[in-house]
């Protein structure tokens, strides 16, 4: 039990910290921001100044650990697991940005150490806190769709994430491309709704860098709703439909990326197609704030992390297996054209 406000340090002050973690930390009444840590201290100072924050600015988290109850780890992907382990060893709780690790085994090591130390380890899966995630659970639990048939889940558009470090295009630093970047969110939700994945096939358009821009996964879940088959497509290059559509025998449910606070149910009543938009009454709270609040309450002992290290390791294992067994998305438009590109130049007089 931590009686005082949670003394928090944020490690990594790139785009996600600037846009989400820092505003959430500053808004939370039970959080005292002690330090912002990033190798680019000038940028971090500017960030603190722009939010009128007075806290320590450092390029090294280690000397600060004794002053911190908890840490948000928003460093590049390759540093998530090693730094999380180091912080846990030093006795601080960790909320780690997704993916918790590049390898599932490292995520499990983090989970084991947190348990051994009696500390909270929360995986930063903020999508669990958007209203549509909970609405889908409610709709499925209520059986509103009837027996489930299948789903399609599309998410993508031209990549526009203003990464401060540019680590996204390094296999060593990012661990992969679109699938480990935002596919990890979608798979986490799909597994939470439909149960563990018993079979899958996977294709992507990685040409050798290990950073796919497009990926397609066919999945079969075997959970409490029986066997549910679905298709997941993610893209960093093309505008996809950006929606999840779940087909049941009696109705279908749709979640649009443009409005993650609602869920639309369509069904037929007496031969008429009807459409119902469902919302939660407290849907307007930002998902990153809710995620931080869940972390804080978990430290206080009143809640449990929405996604712990073991749960996220299962998703990471699926992605790891997908990468290991990846097929190539056919790209007939990219094949080198047939025929001879040139004919011998005519000898000039």
């Amino acid at each position, binding site marked *: 039990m931590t009686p005082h406000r949670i003394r928090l340090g944020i490690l990594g002050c790139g785009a996600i910290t600037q*846009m989400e973690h820092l*505003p959430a930390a500053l808004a939370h009444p039970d959080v005292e921001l002690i330090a912002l840590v990033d190798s680019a201290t000038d940028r971090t100072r500017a960030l603190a100044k722009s939010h009128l924050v007075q806290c320590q600015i450092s390029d090294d988290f280690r000397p600060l650990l004794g002053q911190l109850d908890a840490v948000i780890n928003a460093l590049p992907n390759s540093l998530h697991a090693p730094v999380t382990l180091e912080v846990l060893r030093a006795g601080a709780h960790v909320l780690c940005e997704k993916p918790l690790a590049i390898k599932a085994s490292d995520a499990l090591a983090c989970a084991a150490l947190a348990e051994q130390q009696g500390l909270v380890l929360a995986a930063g899966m903020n999508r669990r806190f958007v209203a549509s995630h909970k609405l889908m659970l409610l709709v499925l639990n209520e059986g509103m769709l009837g027996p489930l048939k299948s789903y399609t889940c599309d998410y993508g558009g*031209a*990549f*526009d*994430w*203003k*990464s401060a470090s*540019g680590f*996204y*295009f390094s296999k060593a630093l990012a661990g992969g*491309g679109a699938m480990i970047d935002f596919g990890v969110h979608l798979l986490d939700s799909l597994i939470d709704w439909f149960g563990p994945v018993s079979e899958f096939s996977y294709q992507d*358009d*990685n*040409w*050798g*860098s290990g*950073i*796919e*821009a497009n990926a397609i996964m066919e999945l079969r879940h075997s959970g409490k709703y029986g066997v549910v088959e679905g298709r997941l497509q993610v893209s*960093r*290059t*093309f*505008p*996809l*439909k950006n929606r999840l559509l779940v087909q049941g025998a009696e109705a279908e449910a749709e979640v*649009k990326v*443009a*409005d993650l*606070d*609602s869920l639309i149910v369509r069904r037929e009543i007496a031969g008429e197609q009807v459409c119902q*938009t469902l*919302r939660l009454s407290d*849907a*307007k709270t*930002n998902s990153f704030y809710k995620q931080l609040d869940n972390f804080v309450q978990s430290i206080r002992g009143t809640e449990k992390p929405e996604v712990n290290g073991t749960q996220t390791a299962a998703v990471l294992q699926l992605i790891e297996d997908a990468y290991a067994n990846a097929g190539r998305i056919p*790209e*007939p*438009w*990219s094949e*080198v*054209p*047939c*025929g*001879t*590109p*040139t*004919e*011998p*130049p*005519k000898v*000039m007089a």
Partner: protein
Amino acid sequence: MSWLDGIIFVTGATGFIGGRVCERLVQAGARRVRALVHNMHRAARIGRLPIELCPGNLLETDSLRQPLADSTIVIHCGLGNARGIVRGTENLLSVCREGKVKRFVHMSTAAVYGLTPPPGSETEDAPLRLTGDGYCDNKGRAERAVLRAGQHGLPVVILRPSIVYGPYSAWSTRLIEDLREHRVALIDRGTGACNTTYVDNLIDAVFASLENDEAIGHTFFITDGEAVTWGDFIRAHRDMLGHKEELPQLTGQDALAYYKERPGVVAGSLKAANRILRSRELRQLLLQIPVTERTLSALWGRMQSLPETKQQSIRSRVGVLPKSFAPSKNGRFVPDEVTIATQTGTVFFSIEKAKRILGYRPRILFPQGTALVEQWLRFANYL
């Protein structure tokens, strides 16, 4: 030793042509490809390739020195803003002269003769002239800078493609969007010369420029060598959409008259301000401000729960319907001035010089090129 064994530096690599250059280099077995990347978030396409992404900017000469220090080939597809076209090319050339560059292929454009090339500009020896268009004139200036560097010993080749199309090309993605929103008209029955250049044909010409020493110091028009008109190009895309209706027509004269008769400065400015306030671009910029993003997404959420007819009515009032800002005359859509200028040219550029010196032979002709584009558009969810 083949040119593929050297270190190949590509500028503009996150763009349509530069991106395909990188892919073709990988397919051809190039050992080391370096791509200059100004905006890392635009690198998703080339991020898939086993190449080096070099953060840098054509306007920051120092950022070019390290990746160019041991590069042997430069393929310059970089563009940037008006200043970037000339200054960026000059910066690149100055660093190339310090290094080990054995061939510099400059991606110019047939638009150095203007958006509507005058008769007489069919062959490369037609003199360049100022056209009054910033893009065209700056590309002309960049060509001159490349030729000067060539005179000082840099082995340069200049390629002048025209309407380069293919997978990822904005010519196709924009046209599909415009056709869907009824923002396309055939000007002069669509008879204007399109000078299509399928992207892989252009890259064949790039490779031929690297393989052939006779090319050094020369400038080449590169097209598919076919008499494809704008009507052909637009109709091919209309067919991809499965649309059957005839496209609206207007004469180039009528279209230009619309712009001559348009309102004066005050009325025109008010009209433009109104258009900007209703534009999608402004809304996208506003969404980058957290407070407006949250306010607008709350409003969006509320709107989504309204009946579709009510949503349509709100959208039309706030200008989300594209029809509301498309210029029209007597209810007929009028293309913008750049489109009118581009689609009313009559000149088909000759590729005889490229055939003769480079041995260039376009492999993908219009039916095959548009079929490949259609396959890609379907995969990429545009169709």
